[in-house]
């Protein structure tokens, strides 16, 4: 077998190995490539930044652990921003397996970093089943949908909720979403009825679809994939897992482009030989 043929029929396992290396190595040897902030992310940052202190931000955890690599860093950064601006945070979620992710994010940021008080500065209502129907009801009567928090504490004994009763008491809704139910439902069933500010964070697969809503003004911000999360990390000035991940992304994207080029060079050489 000639060298050309050998490269052309490269054992897939070698390709697989290089991918693993491309993802792992930057974890140990970060490149710290600069991350440019794109307008959709900047827009969301500006909205949160300009909110008056003590306003309420609702973060909807609409993903499960498989969306966590892309969405959890964004959740953490947004929470950091909110608590730094002394905003109050209300967490709930339309995906049952997402509840522990919301709990751990609040533990890390609200309790661990900012020393915020549960029930006063932030609350967590956990999983809300029912998708669209629930959101329609939520906008009208928050207390009706959120009767108990995720630990079973009744809403009336959470002082933060005293003046959070309907859609217009919530300054901003951010749906951290990886599918259905998620930001589609927030747009169609919540925002369409109650307006107010709505933003979304998406996985890289979901993101392209939401540009149109951004243009039409239905969304005030969009965080797309791990890149968007990294941008937000840069804005709040704290390197997180997304920023770390972007180095792996850069290298593996280059690697794939390299393989595409290699494939074409071989193809071209083989053709010339014939």
């Amino acid at each position, binding site marked *: 077998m000639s060298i050309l043929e050998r490269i052309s029929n490269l054992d897939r396992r070698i390709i697989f190995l290089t991918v693993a290396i491309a993802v792992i190595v930057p974890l*140990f040897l970060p490149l710290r490539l600069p991350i440019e902030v794109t307008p959709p992310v900047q827009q969301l940052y500006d909205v949160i930044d300009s909110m008056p202190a003590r306003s309420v931000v609702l973060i909807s955890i609409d993903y499960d652990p*498989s969306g966590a690599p892309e969405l959890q860093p964004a959740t953490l950064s947004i929470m950091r921003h909110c608590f730094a601006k002394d905003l109050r945070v209300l967490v709930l979620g339309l995906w049952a397996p997402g509840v522990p992710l919301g709990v751990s994010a609040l533990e890390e940021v609200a309790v661990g970093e900012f020393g915020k008080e549960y029930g006063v500065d932030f609350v967590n209502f956990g999983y809300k089943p029912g998708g669209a129907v629930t959101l329609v009801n939520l906008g009208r009567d928050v207390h009706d949908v959120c009767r108990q928090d995720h630990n079973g504490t009744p809403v009336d004994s959470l002082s933060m909720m005293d003046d959070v009763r309907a859609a217009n008491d919530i300054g901003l809704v951010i749906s951290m979403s990886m599918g259905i139910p998620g930001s589609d439902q927030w747009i169609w069933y919540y925002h369409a009825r109650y307006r107010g500010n709505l933003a979304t964070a998406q996985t*890289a697969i979901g993101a392209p679809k939401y540009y149109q809503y951004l243009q039409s003004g239905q969304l005030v911000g969009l965080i797309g994939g791990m890149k968007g999360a990294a941008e937000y990390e840069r804005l709040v000035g704290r390197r997180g897992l997304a920023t770390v991940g972007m180095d792996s992304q850069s290298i593996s994207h280059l690697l794939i482009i390299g393989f595409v080029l290699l494939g074409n060079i071989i193809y071209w050489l083989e053709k010339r030989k014939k």
Partner: protein
Amino acid sequence: MLMTSGPWVWIAGLLTLAIYSFLYKDNPFYKVAEYIFVGLSAGYWAVFLWWNYAYPNLFVPLGEGNYWNIIPIVLGFMMFTQLSKRTSWLVRFPLTFVLGVSLGLQVIAAVEGDMVPQLQGTFSPFAKGALFNTYNFWTSIGLIVLLVGVLSTLTYFFFSREHKGVLGVTSKIGVYFLMVAFGASFGYTIMARISLLFGRLHFLLSDWMHILR
């Protein structure tokens, strides 16, 4: 936290490695992981759907005195007649009910969610005098490209004419649009794929092996 405590993290770590071993070649570890996976997930979905869909939609209302709900419950159980050859024709009753509702919804959704807004969206930006005035140069070009793209892609899907002459040219342009779109989507989603791998490897290296941080 639920995910990274004690022996559980070891189970998760070993199972992750077992699946990756398939990339090298098929082996008994992979097979064990595969069969655990199939069994566990079948159980998970049965439990999940029961508590979140069947129970609240069918049985709770029945308990509250809504006796009409006997109909869907009977229809639901009729699904099981499929298990025997002699009774399997009875499946047609729940099946056609489900099909009727679902096809009806799909038809309306296709027209309302896709067809009308997508058609509309193609020409509505072309307001009088807006091109190159209201929009910037690249947006204007983009809108024209969008129009040409939609129309030519549509002609690619003509089945009852040979693709010759004008139709041949337009459908050929359509093919180029298709290729650009496929290439673009392919490139765009790589980030999500790598993110998943990043998530798994990060779990292995930090949560399980504690090599990182």
